[in-house]
């Protein structure tokens, strides 16, 4: 064992010198921001409505496709089309809550039935999109110039994503901590009966959360699609990571999600470094999320946030 560690550190092939560690950190930052936008809605709705919404992945895809439709097909202004895409994504989330999940809950559907219905809804959305836009790979046809900051390479898109995620995080912090609505959201997630007894309009709070969550998911979808390409499985590919983050951060906790997004993206990027070092395919990066998920369930099923003292 000592011999292995010795060779690992002092072998003539200095693998740790070859890797651009600042770039790894930068990638983790970018992915953490994307994950944060994609996951906040899932975590909040999971905490509020008490079931995992598997259709959340399709809100991400839907936002991306709507942006594509407004920008590339209808030829609208970029910022306007992104705004419209986020709005339509929010609309989809709100509609799926009003038309499907709320009636199901009021009929007393079990947890498993809600999950099955959400998977069904997700497939319905995905295949409708595939029918309308085709199953192939679409692209926004944008070329991003590279920006070099020291040894780190990035693009304006990724910088925009980082700035957006930080603005969103600050706004969410203000919303959840400083406003009455935020207080109501936290109260409902904490104890629905008590919240209802205190005169909180649960329907309004839930609807607002679903709208907000789906809007942010659509926003992240736009970034994900502009970064590489637009495929029908765009959202499904980050769903595994989103669930790992939700469980690691603690269901329904915004600060837990914030921390967990960056923890997961950092461990994924370090995992990719380790994978290339071991000579395995870099496709296994989603396996890192699976490992994080399972170890969370084993070590701390209630998530990170219980370690942090909760403010009242």
């Amino acid at each position, binding site marked *: 064992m000592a011999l292995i560690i010795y060779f690992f550190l002092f072998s003539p092939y200095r693998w740790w010198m070859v890797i651009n560690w600042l770039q790894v950190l930068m990638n983790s930052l970018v992915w953490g921001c994307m994950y944060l936008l994609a996951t906040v809605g899932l975590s909040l709705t999971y905490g509020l409505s008490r*079931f*995992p919404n*598997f259709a959340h992945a399709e809100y991400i895809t839907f936002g991306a496709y709507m942006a594509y439709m407004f920008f590339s097909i209808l030829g609208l202004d970029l910022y306007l089309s992104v705004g419209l895409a986020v709005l339509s994504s929010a609309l989809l989330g709100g509609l799926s809550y009003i038309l*499907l999940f709320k*009636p*199901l809950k009021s*009929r007393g*559907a*079990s*947890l*498993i*039935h809600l*999950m*099955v*219905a959400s*998977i*069904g*809804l997700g*497939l*319905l959305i995905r*295949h*409708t999109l*595939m*029918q309308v836009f085709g*199953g192939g790979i679409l692209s926004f046809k944008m070329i991003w110039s590279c920006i070099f900051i020291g040894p780190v390479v990035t693009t304006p898109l990724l910088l925009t994503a980082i700035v957006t995620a930080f603005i969103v995080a600050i706004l969410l912090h203000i919303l959840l901590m400083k406003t009455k609505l935020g207080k109501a959201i936290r109260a409902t997630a904490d104890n629905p009966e008590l919240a209802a007894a205190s005169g909180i309009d649960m329907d309004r709070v839930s609807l607002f959360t679903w709208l907000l969550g789906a809007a942010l998911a659509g926003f992240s979808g736009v970034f994900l699609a502009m970064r590489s390409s637009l495929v029908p499985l765009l959202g*499904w590919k980050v*769903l*595994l990571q989103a*669930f*790992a983050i939700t*469980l690691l951060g603690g269901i329904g906790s915004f600060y837990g999600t914030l921390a967990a997004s960056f923890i997961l993206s950092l461990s994924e990027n370090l995992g990719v470094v380790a994978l290339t070092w071991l000579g*395995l*395919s870099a*496709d*296994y990066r*989603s*396996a890192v*999320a*699976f490992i994080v*998920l*399972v170890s969370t*369930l*084993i070590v701390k*099923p209630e998530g990170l946030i219980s370690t942090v003292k909760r403010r009242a």
Partner: protein
Amino acid sequence: MPDPLMYALDAVAYAGIFGMLSLSLNLEYGYTNLANFGKVAFFMVGAYVAAVMARMKYPFAVYALVASLVAGFIGLLTSLPALRLREDFLAITMIALGEVMKLIVKNEEWLAGGVWGLSGIPPAVVVQGLSFRERLLVQIALIYGCLVACYVVCELIAKSPYGRVLKTIREDELLAAAYGKNVFRYKACTFALGSAVSGLAGALFAQYIGTVSPYMFEPTVTFSVWMMVILGGPANNTGAVLGAFLVEGFHRSSRLLKDYIGLPLDPINLQVMLTALLVITVVFYRPQGMLKERITPLDRGLLKKLKPMYRRVKTWVRS
């Protein structure tokens, strides 16, 4: 010229394989309330183990056994962290497992052929000098033999004291624990058994199709199986098999519809959209499925006896 009889027989064979998957899910979900959303992972493991071993010229009995053992073992191992927690944690873990398993199969070319998959899997029973139709009939006999065996096993489990414990766990875990049953162990065993049956179904599938590739094992397969159980009626084995036939018939007819009516829709998209709509409708209006759970006289007598005790236990636990 397509042969309509071959198409029908193919559908029958498929329904048999999916009937086994549906039976195994019924054991997990219908009787024990375990949300296995990763059925396709175990199906795939069974199919790949069978494919690898069949290409090495092992007999069917050996590779079917190994396939179900491996699938059962993976099921046991991966469900352990989530079984002590609520149903949704198991559901999330299993969905993730389906993706990770597909990732492994896609990337390990030396073992599983990568994205191209494995082909040239010999059928389980080779009889010389048979026509294509007769060979299909032999396959159907094999598949239905396995299906009947699984049905009998599931029915025996459901009627046995073991099955009653499972139903108790489904209704109230606390009650089962209060009667001294190790809830965790019952759940783990049921999960392993269900996964093993799915592995067997996978082995049958691999030798029937003759080729496996990662693209056959999309999450939509899991969804179809859920659809079968929910439509047919949870906690009813006949219902589960009936559901398999109905869903397979539905899939086939939606494909035929496309060919003969000429809808401007892609058949796969149409099929998935209709299936999703149907499952949402069933969950909405008839969550108990087509065939309700049968309550045997023994169960009824037990229920009568247990109810007062149950109330006492509950008040005792609450106080």
